[in-house]
């Protein structure tokens, strides 16, 4: 039997998903937060967190997703991510666009390389990009899923 869209995938999948989704989210958050120290960064971490969202969509079905998904909120958050990125890039506009003034002059994020509070605007940008990628990918996937529903 073909699974109909909008419905969930059964108890086993739902239970495992409930257990796994927080772990995926935490791992994604780790990748985003350590983007300036280890391989990874905003896009990779954001895509990982979006993977948790997509797992939710697949396991619990579109109807359940609709309750937790607000289109306006997600697109506003996506815009907010972009704005924070742009703001971080503009902090050093006195010298040049994208000038890393936090790293050169402080007051925060100018610690020793290798520590969490270092690398100037890079952690801020990673967080912003992570937010943007997460909201963007989830929105895209939900839009495509809804589309299929809408057709039938």
């Amino acid at each position, binding site marked *: 039997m073909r699974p109909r869209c909008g419905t969930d995938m059964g108890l086993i999948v739902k239970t495992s998903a409930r257990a796994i989704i927080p772990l995926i989210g935490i791992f994604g958050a780790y990748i985003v937060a350590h983007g300036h120290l280890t391989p990874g960064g905003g896009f990779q971490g954001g895509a990982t967190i979006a993977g948790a969202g997509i797992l939710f969509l697949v396991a619990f079905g579109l109807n359940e997703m609709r309750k937790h998904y607000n289109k*306006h909120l997600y697109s506003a958050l996506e815009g*907010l991510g972009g704005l924070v990125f*742009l703001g971080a890039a503009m902090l050093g506009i006195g010298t040049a666009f994208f000038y*890393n003034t936090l790293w050169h002059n402080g007051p925060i994020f100018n610690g020793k390389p290798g520590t969490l509070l270092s690398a100037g605007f890079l952690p801020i940008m990673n967080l912003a990009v992570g937010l943007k990628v997460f909201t963007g990918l989830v929105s895209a996937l939900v839009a495509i899923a809804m589309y299929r529903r809408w057709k039938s």
Partner: protein
Amino acid sequence: MNGEAILPYLIIIPLFGAFSMPIVSLIGRKAREAWAVIISGATLAVASALFYSVWEDRGIIVYTLGAKSPLGQGVSFPIRIVWEVDLFGAIMVLMVALVSFLAVVYSLGYMKHDTGLDKYYTLIIVLELGMLGIAITGDLFNFYVFLEIMSIASYALVAFRNDTWEGIEAGIKYMFVGSIASSFILLGIALLYGQYGTLTMSYLAVKLAQNPTVTAKVALALFIAGLLFKSGASPVHMWLADAHPAAPSSISAMLSGLVIKVGGVYALARLLFSIYSPLAYKALRAYGYPYINMNTVGWAIIIFACLTLIIGNAMAVIQTDMKRLLAYSSVGQIGYILLGLGIGLAAYGSHTGEVALAGAIYHTFNHALMKALLFLIAGVVIHELGTRDLNELSGLAKTMPKTTFAFLIGAAAIIGMPPLNGFASKWLIYESSAIFNPILGAIAIIGTAFCTAAYVRVLYTFFGRPSERVMKAKDPEASMLWPIIILAVAIVIMGLFPWQISEKVMLPAAKALEDQLAYISAVLGGA
């Protein structure tokens, strides 16, 4: 005015506008529309100031991202992303900002009945952003990123009306062709990076002149193939004739007026003159070093240009769909621009080449105005009558006099009638091509004959006996009428001072494009 200080705002303002659009549109419809107009208007102001600054100083503005100087610490080559604007780039920036602003204003009335408009305005600003970025960038990968921003926004906008099959089909065709072309360009960039280890255009030019290898030639072939795809040159122009009519008319105006020029011809000119330079070819050949033969490249572009010119204009004659006719006419006019570019490359160093290049730049600007005007008028006709079939538009002049008059101006300008702006630019191209090779001059004239036939046919329909359907039509509302009036007035005013503009702006722009040494030393600082 200090051009260097305002250059980043050319990118910051549209980026800010695009990112804040979802938040602003939560307030309401009016706020969103006002925001789009404010953002594109502010971009236009910055672009005008930038153009004035570059034009006044006759210099090249270099802006480094992330630091004061593009050179790395303790090394003498650039390691950072640079933006580099010469007069040619500044003209493109002004053109993009002007036409985009008018298209946004026009959209207020034209797109009133559509849904999903927050995405529409975001995409239109992103499209503008991509084109501005291409015009100002001095870094190859940065160029690719802006090219893709522009391309993705235009794929989405072509398919914006996804409840019609026409938009979807055109969008899919456009997207596949455009993605393949982008892949070619990326492959070319990867090959150049692998060979020379740098992405800064000016430093790459130095490295290339020192050691022109086979890899560089392959990369050049890939670049030319990809960018001819993007500019809609003849063997691969089919996507253009599908995509431009299917888009909403304000987008058609931007696609036909701007995207194929900035993303195709401008990028091609930048690559051919500032990276692979005919100057280096001449010098290396004179001293017996290995070289890349830019003369052959110039002739290859001339051949493509002639094909494009004939096919595009000839196909325009037999169309019955008004927007399709205009799209084919765009193909034909791209042929003229490419012809000027090819002659400028093949006859590099002579006065003929310079005049041809000036003509190409002039015609790029003129055609952006003319084609934007004509597509906006086509949009008005669709908006009022719901059809764009020429057989049903007979006698439009009676009920839509202002619109028809504006169309008359646009058509006369695109044909090249003397008191309008198209005359001067076409004349420069005819003149230089006739001096360079009389056969090319003859081909250019034949193309114009076809073009005249196509537009006379449309005008004949407009001034013909009114059909019943047309009687209900009237001139459009103010937000749609004013962009048309502004464009028509700009065409007439530019037509009044053709030689002054060509002397004061276009010839210096051609000189700036030809002067590769100034382009290089602006970044490397004589190092």
